[in-house]
């Protein structure tokens, strides 16, 4: 009975949060449309997604990882490593058609490495993925040194830069297909339910007979593989790689997921929330860019939005004060 009421209260809160995100999104889109004549053009809408496409694809998987009460800080470095490995192997003369599966395997292996130390050895994911954040990046830099690698095959660059279905490029299609699949997995399958249960309380989940280690292993392998895929998309989109590809992307990815209402402590959040947060950040960035607001001001505005939206719903002012009073009374 109490569990049921907690769940329904949680559900109500999540719904309110998503409702708020929808309102914010509508407001931003209306503002953009009113202030910039170019905003609602098809080419701009495609650019809006394309400019951040690698981050938002990884954000979908990051949603699973954070709901599972873990974190993967190594995604940006894995994107960089994947892009550099592609460039390196291509330069060594390996057939690019063959390089793509090899790079995806590197992603899976990197994810498995994270997964091993987290689920089998039992180290905190914050520590493990911080180490691989540095390690993967170092490997990427070793592979390409301080050179840019470019002149990829035409078909590869075209996949990243031109429309696949009409004007819509491969990466945008991949994003929405992945969203649809992951939505079903997270919100409609046993695997999704386990993700929430483990995230809420790992010990209880283990006690209930869920193989939590295996579950986390799967999530980190998925995170590594999708990051490697995103790294390949990046290489195709910009047609060149360098050791600093995707540097610092992990923070943008994690903030999008948190803005979407996913709790950093695990156990709650939805993929729809992440999608709404992605759309908000992308539209806000694009609108400001069209109004020539860039650089530090843009960073500042998005920062303020994130502070307001990530922190405010989590600081229950009444509850907070109540706890404080209790603490004072105790001492």
């Amino acid at each position, binding site marked *: 009975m109490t569990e049921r009421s907690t769940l329904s209260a949680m559900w109500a809160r999540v719904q309110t949060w998503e409702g708020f995100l929808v309102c914010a999104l509508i407001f931003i889109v209306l503002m953009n449309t009113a202030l910039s004549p*170019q905003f609602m*053009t098809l*080419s*701009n809408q495609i*650019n809006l997604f394309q*400019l951040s496409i690698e981050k938002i694809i990884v954000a979908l998987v990051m949603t699973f990882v954070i709901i599972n009460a873990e974190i993967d800080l190594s995604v940006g470095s894995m994107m960089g490593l994947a892009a550099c490995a592609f460039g390196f192997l291509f330069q060594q003369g390996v057939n690019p058609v063959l390089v793509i599966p090899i790079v995806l395997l590197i992603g899976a292996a990197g994810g498995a490495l994270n997964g091993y130390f987290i689920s089998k050895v039992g180290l905190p994911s914050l520590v493990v993925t911080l180490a691989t954040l540095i390690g993967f990046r170092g490997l990427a830099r070793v592979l390409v*040194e*301080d050179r*840019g690698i*470019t002149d990829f095959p035409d078909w590869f*660059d075209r996949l*990243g*830069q031109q429309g696949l279905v009409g004007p819509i490029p491969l990466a945008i299609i991949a994003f929405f297909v992945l969203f649809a699949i992951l939505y079903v997995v997270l919100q409609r399958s046993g695997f999704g339910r386990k993700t929430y249960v483990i995230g809420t309380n790992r010990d209880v989940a283990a006690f209930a007979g869920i193989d939590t280690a295996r579950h986390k292993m799967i999530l980190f392998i998925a995170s590594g593989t999708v990051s490697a895929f995103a790294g390949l998309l990046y290489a195709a*989109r*910009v*047609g*060149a*790689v*360098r050791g*600093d*590809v995707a*540097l*610092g992307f992990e923070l943008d990815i994690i903030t999008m997921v948190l803005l979407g209402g996913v709790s950093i402590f695990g156990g709650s959040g939805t993929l729809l929330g992440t999608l709404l947060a992605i759309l908000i950040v992308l539209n806000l*960035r*694009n609108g400001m*860019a*069209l109004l*020539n607001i*860039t*650089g*530090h001001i843009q*960073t500042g505005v998005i920062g303020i939005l994130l502070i307001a939206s990530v922190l405010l719903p989590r600081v229950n002012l009444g509850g907070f004060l109540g706890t404080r009073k209790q603490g004072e009374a105790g001492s």
Partner: protein
Amino acid sequence: MKRLKTSCAAAALAAASMTVVAIPASAQTMLDAGQEVDMVLLPKFLGILVFDQAHEGAQEAHAELGNPGELLFVGPTPENSVAGQIEIMTTSATQGQGAVMLSNNAGDQIVPSAQAAQDAGTRVVTWDSPIPSGDGEDVFVAQVDFGSIGVVMADMAHSILDGSGQMAVLSATPDAANQNAWIAAMEEALEMPKYADIELVDIVYGDDQAEVSYNRALALVDQYPDLGLIMSPTTVGIQASSKAMQDEGLCEQVRVSGLGLPAEMVSYTLNGCAPEFALWDFRDLGYLTYYTAYGLATGQLSGEIGESFTAGRMGEYTIEEDPGRPGTRRILMGPFTVYNADNVEAAAQ
């Protein structure tokens, strides 16, 4: 006016005789002022003094040409430089800007967005730092000839050391492409008999961080007791080295030279720690870049090799093939300004 035109024609003729490509009759152009075109000045990132100076130069040219359009100065933050430059390039194409003036920090990663901008009718003029492959770039406005910088540094060493002595180089990061090219050019220049008595004892790196550079400079002095000069081809390194020598009271023994900003170096030049240093003028670079981009965006210049035009107060310039990047086009600003006690105060204003 007429005299100017005649001299322009003469210069164009001289340029024409040096280039292999046939020169069209309209090779020499006086840019027609007052045409409306919106343009974007896109630095590597915001918050760097030299880029602000380039902006001032561009504003000066913008006012002089009476362009009723808008000159925008937008850039990314340092930690978001590559993605930010790509985003601004893409947005500029969407907005239908006449030209983007880019100091490229994204390597060849900028190429697809720059090409898309060109396809949308936006001219792409690079300055300070070009697109390595030259793809997606109309023309590069080069601050100096990267080869000539070596001779300038060797000459400053020669004059400060009075012809003989030991010197060491304190550079930026070990993999900084421009600094490495400049040091290589200086080593080549030092082979000449004029510099036979100057010994280059070491090359160290301060990573373009003030504190690291400061400590490296002091370490050099400890390591080489007969050291007479620290040559630092980076604005961060030269300032940190000068401060280190001044703080330790070593300015009589070890002088500092290299590439520095007058505003940051004025006190060290006047007190003798850094008697001579060089740099190109970023205001001029911004000014020349604006004229180039204006000419291209208004259709008055086509961007072909051999084409000449008058860039206001700076005079005549010709588009030529970039010797460092075969198949690409550049406009060479040059030369250096060498600063000493006589002119540093005026430049520091």
